[in-house]
């Protein structure tokens, strides 16, 4: 016990940056509980995060940490992570493959979604795969999650900072939002 305690104390003294790099997998495994192994979610209301752009991941996590971006749950988690850990997590999950999820989608809704895309496709592409390296891909993302996310942008009380998204989401009807969510969810 004495020896082990000595080692433990010594290791802690090495500083957090070395350790964040040391165990980024261990750190990232705390995210698996909600976002799936390697960031591939199997719970339709939780987003897959593996393979999202590093810049996007870094940005949303830092904004949640600082409180400038609304979140239901994530802000309270991120406040407990250092900026170095956030950078490590963003790099780690960005490196994982983006895995579109096969899910039950409504064909009629997909057809309606294809007609309602004009507010979305400029940034997210008509296949859900943006090419700017910053906008998150939405192809094969969970339809339930996409729809729930749109609710944040529609509710002025939430106050999402991205004005373009707020405008776009408000101009679509609830039915159209579900349709676009299903459309993108169905893209491979």
């Amino acid at each position: 016990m004495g020896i082990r305690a000595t080692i433990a104390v010594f290791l802690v003294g090495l500083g957090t940056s070395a350790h964040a790099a040391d165990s980024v997998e261990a750190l990232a495994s705390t995210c698996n509980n909600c976002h799936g192994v390697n960031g591939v979610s199997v719970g339709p209301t939780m987003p897959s995060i593996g393979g999202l752009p590093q810049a996007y991941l870094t940005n949303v996590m830092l904004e949640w940490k600082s409180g400038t971006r609304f979140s239901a749950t994530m802000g309270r988690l991120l406040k407990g992570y250092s900026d170095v850990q956030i950078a490590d997590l963003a790099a780690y999950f960005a490196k994982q493959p983006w895995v579109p999820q096969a899910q039950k989608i409504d064909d009629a809704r997909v057809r309606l979604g294809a007609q309602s895309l004009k507010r979305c496709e400029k940034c997210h592409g008509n296949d859900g795969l943006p090419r700017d390296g910053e906008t998150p891909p939405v192809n094969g993302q969970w339809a339930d999650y996409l729809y729930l996310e749109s609710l944040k942008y529609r509710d002025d009380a939430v106050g999402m900072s991205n004005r373009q998204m707020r405008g776009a989401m408000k101009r679509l009807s609830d039915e159209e939002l579900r349709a676009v969510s299903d459309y993108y969810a169905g893209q491979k």
Partner: protein
Amino acid sequence: MSRLNRRDFLKAAALGVPALALHAPWAFANGKQRVVVVGGGFGGAAAAKYLKMMAPALDVTLVERNKVYVSCPLSNEVISGHGELKDLEVGYGGLQKRGVNVLFDEATAIDAAKRTVSLKGGTTLAYDALVLSPGIDFNYAGVEGYTEELANTDLPHAYKAGPQTLALKKQLEAMPDGGTFIIAVPPGPFRCPPGPYERASQVAAYLKGHGKTKSKVLILDANDSFSKKGLFEQAWKTHYGSMIEWVPGASDGKVVKIDPKTKTAYTNFGEHKADVLNVIPPHHAGSIAKNAGLTNDKGWCTVDMLTMESTVQKNIWVVGDSCVHGDLPVYPMPKSAHAAVTQAKVAVGAILARLAGQPAPTPYFVNTCYSIAAPDWGFSVVHVYRVEGGKLIYAQEAGGISVIETPAITTLRKLEAEYAVGWLKNIMADCFA
């Protein structure tokens, strides 16, 4: 992982720490190393899966009594009819596919000196490392007149999900309008700290949804406060008016005795007649841990905060509801599935390091726990811990409960009610798939 560990190792060696063999990670000198995991709930399943995932050569055996696991999280929603028990069930096929030996048996004794676990079926398993995740057992004697037999027949506690969950649901459905549903809450700590209050909410949701609005939900509590209290009270007022009443311990809320025939709950000075009497008995660590001498005077396993290794016996790691862990005594980790799973992952890191003769890696502990108080009305509590100065501390700048008063309340509560469901699917897959 190995590069920096090796550097750490070399620095540790330079400190004069003797006799650490420099193995390549998980390439063991003395043949196949064996890890036994006792208990196949969230904690045990996660431990078995991550051991095998991170060290495929390891011999991992999981001992579990039941062929199907039923999640306690979201089982209150089954009582109210907002969820199905079958959605909470999972088998062990996923772990078997990963190469975990799953033995459907019961661990009856641990010999820490010989490093063996005896099973009811007669097998004796030898281990190099043992993970105990036995969950909780109930102290039925804690409430006079209550017994295990009553729990399995007329008075289900339903605090382990399964047949009792459905039995309690039936009793709720049969309760006439104007009836009283009593929930007796034991002294803490108990598993799922917000569980009894979420249950009260779900019972009220059922009653409201079925027009039985003259009914009452009475929480008789041995404690003077509870998890997410402000959030629950707001939800109760918003959705159920005065249907739910909470009686704290200080106001004679502690149930000390029941009469099962008349469904009467007795406190020290009062008595309350119920139409449905739901007694949750006091808890302690699973009996196998108690019998192995791993528990303290309060009935819980004490562990090294940074590794989850038992402070009583070397080479035994205890995770989940049966241990006391966290920034004690103020910020212990709650007995939740999420906590159990992060503890299991830390234990796996520590075990693999031990078997490879290396120091344990930095541990990361978080907890996220959702409750659904009404349809589209969920909220959560978050805990984040970190190591500072060699100690595990609760990160006070993080964590806490969902915002109580906010103009965005409708959206916020809906999101977290939905997240609760997605969370369960992911954590079940994280442990069992």
